[in-house]
């Protein structure tokens, strides 16, 4: 089987294994959704039992797993007890919000890190280099939580930005441009937090990779042919330095659905993060499994994308 085919098959097997594990772990957690209701003295145990059998919670685990898989193929991804709807419709909305947030953040991080890293690598040992190393060290040691809370505090004090959430109260009545402005204003704090959390590592990687490539003989040879500095950096050095960066890119795609949980919860962004938290606390089994699986799918897709891009970009990898 050829390379891509093997990676695909590998991915599918991984998905199946992950689904089993997710299901098992969620199931193993003590308690069930109806424990809360059980505490209510007005509801008889018979009602609870009836509810349980209605939702199929009294069946053995393999049977439930089988029914869940069937539901996945039907497009429903199970049933949420709390929201009383198929999980997939819940996921769609929340995943869209999360993707908006993380997509913008990822785009910004890469757009800042790559040119900045290239420029810093071009001036080794200079002030920019030292500033970069210092500030990235500081940023790396500050937890995401602290950053998010810090920004929120700032927003409360200065009244410049909305404090959390995704939309203002009067969102639906706004005109189109105002709606967009409102969305952007709400995006600023969470995006900033994510960007500042991810930037240091990426910047360092770009810088390190570029510094190594700039030492290679072919760069000196191109310089000897009179190729200009900018062209040397972006046409010769960056493509050769791209190998590790492409793998990182694939991983960052993979982390799009799962990397922003903390920030979403803290800033009140209605994405998959708060959903997962809620569902875990209320033992909404299928929602938990659904969120975990969607993150897994993205992770596997991201890895696969990285493999494909690597094989496409580096001619040496193709020959293996």
């Amino acid at each position, binding site marked *: 089987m*050829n*390379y*891509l085919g093997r990676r695909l098959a590998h991915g599918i097997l991984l998905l199946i294994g992950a689904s089993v594990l997710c299901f098992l772990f969620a199931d193993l957690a003590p308690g069930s959704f109806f424990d809360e209701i059980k505490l209510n003295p007005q509801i008889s145990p018979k009602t609870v039992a009836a509810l349980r059998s209605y939702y199929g919670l009294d069946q053995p685990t393999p049977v439930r797993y089988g029914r869940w898989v069937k539901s996945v193929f039907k497009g429903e991804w199970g049933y949420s007890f709390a929201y009383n709807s198929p999980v997939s419709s819940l996921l769609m909305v929340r995943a869209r919000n999360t993707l908006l947030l993380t997509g913008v953040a990822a785009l910004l991080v890469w757009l800042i890190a790559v040119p900045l890293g290239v420029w810093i690598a071009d001036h080794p040992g200079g002030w920019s280099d030292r500033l970069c190393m210092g500030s990235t060290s500081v940023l790396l040691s500050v937890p995401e939580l602290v950053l998010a809370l810090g920004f929120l505090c700032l927003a409360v004090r200065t009244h410049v930005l909305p404090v959390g959430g995704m939309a203002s109260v009067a969102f639906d009545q706004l005109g189109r441009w105002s709606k967009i402005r409102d969305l952007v204003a709400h995006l600023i704090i969470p995006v900033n937090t994510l960007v500042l959390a991810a930037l240091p590592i990426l910047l360092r990687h770009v810088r390190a990779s570029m510094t190594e490539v700039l030492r290679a003989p072919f760069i000196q040879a191109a310089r000897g042919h009179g190729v200009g500095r900018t062209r040397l950096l972006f046409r010769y050095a960056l493509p050769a330095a791209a190998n590790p960066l492409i793998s990182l890119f694939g991983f960052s795609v993979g982390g799009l659905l799962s990397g922003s949980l903390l920030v979403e919860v803290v800033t009140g962004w209605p994405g998959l993060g708060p959903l997962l938290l809620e569902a875990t606390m209320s033992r909404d089994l299928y929602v938990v499994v659904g969120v975990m699986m969607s993150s897994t799918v993205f992770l596997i897709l991201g890895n696969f994308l990285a493999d494909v891009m690597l*094989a*496409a970009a580096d001619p040496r*990898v*193709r*020959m*293996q």
Partner: protein
Amino acid sequence: MTAEQGAKRAAKAALVQVKALHKRYVQRRALSRRKFVVDALKNVDLALQPECLTALVGSSGSGKTTLANCLAMLEKPDAGEIWFEELEISRRPDHELACLRPKIQMVFQDSAGALNPFLTAAQIVGEPLEVQGREHGRKLRQRACELMEEVGLSADWADRSPLDFSGGQRQRLAIARAIALQPRLLILDESLSGLDLVTQAQVLNLLADIRVTHSLTYLLISHDLTLVGQVADHIAVMHQGSIVEHGTRQQVFGSPQQACTRELLVAAQVLESTFRTAQPRMRT
């Protein structure tokens, strides 16, 4: 003399006998289904006489390195036999080969890449002795320094990194390491090709000296026929995976039978004849 006649005559008292060796490489491209099949060795027959220098010449891609690797037991051929001192060595499992490895040693082309830069010179030379458990501690170091002196390197440099040595000195170090276990056969895979003329001549002289003291047999692999012509007793010419001509130096240079041999000779002579006559260039 054709390959067959040469092989038959040489088979009598040969140290190494290679019979009908085959080796094929399959290369797959990462994103496609196609595979490239390369027949590196096709039905190779070769005999190496004891205490002689046999040169293996041929252009790049003719299979010389593959043959060397099979002889040094670094790769296993797909078919055929290799006989070394009455023992068949190509079909043995790895644990049985461990006691045979000291007898066949190899010196590679890229000396900087073949020597561990994290070890000192004495450690590099002594490593085979240590691995085989023959010497330890102070005696090991003493033996290593002796070997270094023998190849013309000063024992004062025993604690230097191999990167401090020049190319020629590194090859001497590699030779010292190779003779540490007192092998019978020394394979030199293009070991001289990156060196200056002066250094090449010096290393060849060194090899001539230690050949007698250590009763060594050499297999010298090179694309440089001029170089080889100065020192080889026997010459085997390889072309596209097979040995097409095999004989003594006089036979191969005097009456080359194959077209590729003649081509190699002509290329060598092109440079030599211009040198000999040193005619002024004609300007149009």
